[in-house]
């Protein structure tokens, strides 16, 4: 767990936003933003699942943004507005739907016939989540990646720590590690 955490922190140090829409969303709500690189994604695959490795092989980096709807006043039209904004950044809709009460959307940006970016949007009554991927994943397996990130014990613990942890501790940790990963003050 500690090893993964350190890797995530180091990876995030040099990470950059993939899209303006995601960057603006994060700034607007000051939510939680995590950056993953291929190596850090591999670290999530503790059970050496070959399918998972195959799924992430073409991902260069990935940004995970989570907005807690209980803490922030997220307008009802925010989800639709996000989709519109991604479309304005040349993303096209690949898949939409709602499973177990959670709306989701997969959008892709192509350049010269190659996938350059993938967005996975998810929203339910408690949170708004964006996976902003630079590179591509096998689209038919996008939901598996989302579930792995969503259900990974390590990542879940980390999210919990970030969300409920002491802000001073986080600030100190950030200063010690000189990292960009942060959970901003919700107040």
């Amino acid at each position, binding site marked *: 767990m500690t090893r993964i955490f350190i890797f995530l922190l180091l990876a995030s140090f040099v990470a950059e936003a993939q899209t303006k829409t995601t960057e603006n969303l994060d700034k607007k709500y000051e939510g939680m933003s995590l950056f993953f690189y291929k190596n850090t994604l591999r670290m999530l695959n503790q059970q050496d699942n070959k399918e998972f490795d195959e799924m992430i092989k073409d991902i260069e980096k990935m940004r995970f943004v989570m907005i807690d709807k209980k803490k922030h006043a997220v307008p009802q039209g925010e989800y639709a507005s996000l989709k519109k904004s991604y479309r304005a950044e040349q993303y096209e809709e*690949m*898949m*939409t*739907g709602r*499973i177990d009460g959670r709306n989701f959307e997969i959008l892709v940006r192509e350049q010269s016939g190659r996938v350059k970016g993938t967005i996975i949007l998810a929203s339910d009554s408690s949170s708004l989540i964006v996976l902003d991927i630079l590179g591509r994943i096998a689209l*038919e397996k996008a939901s598996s990646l989302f579930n792995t990130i969503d259900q990974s014990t390590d990542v879940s613990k980390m999210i919990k720590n970030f969300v409920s942890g002491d802000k001073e501790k986080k600030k100190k940790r950030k200063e010690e590690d000189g990292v960009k990963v942060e959970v901003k003050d919700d107040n």
Partner: protein
Amino acid sequence: MKKLVLGVMMVMAMAAQAQNDAIAKFFSKYQNDESFSQVNVSGKMFSMMANLDSEKPEDKALFTAISKIKGLKILSKTETRNSRDLYKEAMAMIPTNDFEELMTIRDKDKDMRFFTKESGGKISELVMVMAGNEEFVLMTLFGEIDLKEMSKIGRAVNIDGLNNLEKIKDKDKNKKK
């Protein structure tokens, strides 16, 4: 004469549209009901999947079949007591003039029916209606559909509900015996 032909064509086009609307209406009716799950996959996604590189000849046939699919819609409800009512409602809305029944399966507590629609000698739509004691699924796949590749497409797309397409392959096997 030209006017007559044009008129007949317009009536036929309107009739076809009305039949498609029947299924679309069913999706629309429940799309905002949060107790239902739904998935819509665009033709673009299928065409992108078809662009994957493969040296295996069998994969090439699969990718060709995938590239001709224009879209997929799934509507489902689980842990429901009215699955049989939904099944009846869905069955009643399928335009029987236009759709031909491909296969019926009764598996333990599940009833499953597949329908196909032909256009120009090719299958242009595949509809599946399924109901169990507590679940209901309606799926429609449209474009140019190669039934021989359906089971592989079901596996390749890896979406809940499409695994039922494997049954089509089983049916073909049974026919050969």
